[in-house]
């Protein structure tokens, strides 16, 4: 290792992704040639992965879908046999039917006028709505199909599709794999004897939560819905709010074995294309067997794995995702995770709560000011306390100094030990509070309050003034709206305690400089992490640290480099101008200009 340090190695120049201003306007193919093979494959011949995506395509892309179907038929690359028994064998083999207890294969006969055709259904019990299968698939096929079929046997396919099966999401598939993927995602496969293709009906009905209040991002004013673990419910929650015809929900499958369906959501004519491409590229190039949650996904696609602060926003609030989509950002939603990821974000976004947007601007500015204070306190307060009491006695008012002095008089430890003791026991309480079983929960409060609040002071283990410091620090860290950012500040706080204990304000200053350098050089999906502040971007301050009124937020954040910069015209409160009285109109103009 020493050798590698001392010797010169020519650095490998690896061009990182940087979201630039022009990249949105140029055709995306130019900006990332060679990197992105996926993008170009959009409408070409279906690879296996592409097909998997097609399983989940939305109505918006229905036209495309039918195109592709025709193509499939022409290509005729079907591995489904005309012999039903062969198909049955394949399916039983592929699904390990002898081992899988929840796999249901239902064989039956379709009665047509002069004969019966054998068929079978395959689905997983527990993933499907059995009533829908009974009523909309089995019943029509078994009971109501006794009709005259004209023409040749191949037309049965079309006939069944268009006349017999009343189910709304019925898809024709041409390979076993396609059908298998569908079945695993809550579909029901239907094989009919003599056909070279099969049907996949979407009858999914996963057991799961219904839409509930978000657990972690609570607001008082604003929508009270949160994401669930169901992908479609989540995309639905977004579409419900954002009825923009350009809202795209692209499908993508992550995990070679888990095949977790994900959605990339963005607004087509707003989001920067190169950003969308980059998201797609990163997601497609994850080579992993299983992936369970966006928390994992985040680690696979973030720019700086070592940076303490989160580089994408994990939120369980659909309204928050909608706002950010409207600003030109991209959201990633994953099946099985109630948290959506939004990229790119900057350091400001971790300070915001969803509520900010719904409150009048003076209110949300008050909240933001308090949050900045909270961040500073949770990061620096114990460090500053240590620095002052150990190095810079002249900084405190004499009265306070004497109070601290008398409080510390009987404490046997140096104040660093005191601080560590309290901080660690606070972290203990916090961790225990999450793990503790519900019914015993209140006990923890008592223990915590007793140990931290009173007993420790009375036993002269810590000084009462330190309890205040630790308590305020704890409060501060709970006031940080972003869960991940809270972690970041908790970890860094210990670093600052060490630095302050070693060299007072000098140490804190060094720490701030190092962390500043680290943060400023970091990027989140090609956007500098401290964006509207460093580098400063034009008009970046309407919603940077403090918020201007809603009607004044005319532009999307500059650093997102959206295709359309403007969100609203200079004068969005048109009613104020509509008045014939020019006096009031002028006033308003002046107001907005000012």
């Amino acid at each position: 290792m020493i050798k590698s340090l001392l010797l010169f190695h020519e650095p490998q120049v690896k061009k990182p992704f940087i979201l630039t201003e022009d990249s949105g306007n140029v055709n995306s193919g130019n900006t990332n040639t060679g990197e992105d093979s996926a993008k170009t494959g959009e409408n070409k011949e279906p690879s296996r992965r592409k097909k998997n995506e097609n399983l989940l395509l939305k109505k918006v892309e229905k036209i495309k879908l039918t195109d592709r179907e025709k193509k499939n038929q022409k290509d005729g690359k079907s591995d489904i046999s005309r012999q039903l028994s062969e198909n049955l064998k394949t399916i039983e083999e592929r699904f390990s039917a002898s081992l899988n207890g929840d796999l249901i294969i239902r064989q039956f006969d379709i009665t047509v006028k002069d004969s019966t055709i054998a068929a079978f259904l395959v689905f997983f019990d527990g993933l499907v709505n059995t009533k829908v299968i009974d009523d909309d698939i089995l019943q029509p096929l078994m009971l109501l199909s006794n009709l005259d079929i004209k023409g040749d046997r191949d037309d049965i396919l079309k006939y069944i599709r268009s006349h017999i099966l009343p189910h709304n999401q019925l898809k024709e598939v041409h390979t076993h794999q396609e059908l298998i993927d569908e079945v695993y995602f809550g579909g029901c496969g239907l094989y009919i004897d003599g056909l070279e293709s099969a049907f996949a009906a979407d009858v999914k009905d996963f057991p799961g939560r219904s839409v509930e209040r978000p657990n972690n991002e609570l607001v008082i004013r604003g929508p009270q819905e949160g994401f669930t673990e169901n992908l479609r419910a989540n995309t639905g929650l977004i579409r419900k709010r954002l009825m923009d015809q350009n809202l795209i929900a692209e499908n993508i499958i992550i995990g070679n074995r888990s095949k977790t369906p994900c959605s990339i959501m963005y607004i087509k004519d707003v989001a920067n294309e190169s950003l969308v491409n980059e998201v797609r590229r990163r997601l497609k190039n994850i080579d992993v067997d299983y992936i369970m949650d966006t928390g994992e996904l985040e680690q696979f696609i973030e720019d700086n794995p070592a940076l303490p602060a989160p580089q994408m926003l994990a939120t369980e609030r659909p309204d928050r995702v909608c706002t950010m989509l409207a600003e030109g950002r991209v959201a990633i939603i994953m099946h099985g995770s109630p948290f959506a990821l939004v990229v790119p974000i900057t350091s400001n976004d971790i300070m915001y709560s969803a509520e900010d947007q719904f409150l009048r601007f003076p209110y949300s500015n008050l909240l933001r000011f308090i949050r900045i204070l909270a961040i500073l306190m949770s990061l620096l307060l114990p460090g500053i306390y240590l620095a002052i009491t150990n190095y810079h006695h002249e900084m405190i008012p004499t009265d306070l100094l004497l109070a601290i002095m008398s409080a510390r008089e009987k404490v046997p430890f140096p104040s660093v030990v005191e601080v560590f003791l309290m901080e660690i026991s606070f972290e203990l309480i916090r961790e225990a509070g999450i793990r503790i079983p519900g019914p015993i929960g209140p006990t923890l409060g008592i223990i915590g309050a007793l140990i931290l609040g009173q007993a420790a002071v009375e036993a002269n283990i810590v000084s009462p003034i330190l309890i205040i410091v630790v308590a305020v620090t704890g409060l501060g860290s709970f006031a940080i709206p972003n869960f991940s950012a809270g972690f970041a500040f908790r970890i860094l706080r210990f670093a600052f305690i060490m630095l302050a204990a070693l060299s007072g304000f000098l140490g804190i200053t060094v720490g701030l400089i190092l962390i500043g350098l680290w943060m400023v050089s970091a990027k989140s999906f090609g956007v500098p992490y401290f964006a509207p502040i460093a580098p400063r971007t034009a008009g970046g301050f309407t919603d940077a640290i403090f918020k201007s009124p809603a009607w004044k937020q005319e532009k999307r954040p500059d650093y997102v480099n959206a295709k359309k910069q403007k969100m609203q015209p200079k004068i969005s409160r048109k009613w104020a101008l509509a008045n014939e009285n020019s006096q009031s109109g002028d006033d308003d103009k002046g107001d907005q200009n000012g």
Partner: protein
Amino acid sequence: MDRRKRLIAIIMLVAICPLLASCYDAREVDDLGFVIAMGLDRGKTNTLRMTLQIAKPMAGADGGSVGDDLSYEQFSVEAPAVFSGLNMINTFASKQISLTHLKVVVFSSELAREGLKPYLNAMLRGKEFRPNMPIVVARHTAEEYLKSVDPKLVTNAAKYYELVFQSYKYTGLIPKVEFHDFYLASKSPCRNPVAILGDASKFKSVEEFDIKNSTYMDHHRSMPFEGDLFAGDIPALGGARAENVGLAVFDGDKMVGELDGTNTTMYLLCTGDYIHSYWTFPDPLAEGRYVLMNVKQSRKPKHRVEFVDGKPRIDIMLNLEGDLVAVQSDIDYETGDNSLVLESAAEDYIKDHVQKFLDKTINEFQSDICGFGAYARAHFMTWAEWEAYNWHTKYKDATFNLTVNFKVRRPGLILRSGTSEAMESRRDDQ
């Protein structure tokens, strides 16, 4: 590799940090003894007798009763110099002495008359001395002065010192003195420093009260007004027995005289540090009665120095305003000509006092404590010329041209001193 290098670099940096610092300077608060006041006297066995008041940790944090205990412990030691004294005290005081919270330095007038240069230098160099602490000259010994500080209204002496030397803002009876400024003035070719005059009260009971040291005769009054006294002579009991009234006049680093409270007010007026205080004016229309006004400085004074026949002529314009707080004679001074009468009487009164004060600085002390030299400086092209002129020797020839603008602004809660009819009609209304 690049990342690993960076990581190693950061780890090394952090590792070096403790090597460089390693808590070298760290001192726990409770391991230090914080000096809140320092007194310097001429010693019996050595050059200096140093008296330190070291704050005790505040009782009351765990509910303990404060009782009659003093909030400080007083130590005295005889030593050749300030820092050697600190060393000596450290041998028997259990805690390491820290001067970072030193609130006041008291010199005995004996020491001050000999010159403070050796001590000022030590205090300026020592990084623990605060530049904004006040300087007090005790008329007797500093030790006695400090011993008499037993604050009754605040729980700790540090707070007492913080507050008591701010009283110039509302009494005008002590000057505004900060150590750093004192030092600069002591070396300045334009001005001379002053210090707060303090002393322990000489009265122990009401029977002992006398006014024989009062300066009311000098001010041509039949009885002493609030400012016609020096520290230690106030006929008062209760509270801390240490008193601060008046100022010590310096020439360079040597004390040359004392001024009483009234003259201190005039000093503040001339320098512009005056804020507000209550004044007792003789009633211009009623003999033997007084009009009390709260006099404020409405604008900073304007200064101008001209040279007439080689002698400096100093123009001073004072802008003051007053609020009536008591009219003993109940004469209607709120309206009409009476207010003009009062204003001009007050102007004359103030002018007279300021003139006497300035004359005193010339005749008695020949010391420009108001810093008029700074305005005279403007007439010289180079610093060398100015230094060669030697303002300090020329100041005694100065003449003064005083202008006082005084306006009565607010009559207090009585908008108009009632005539009998007005009173009656008011009663009818009710």
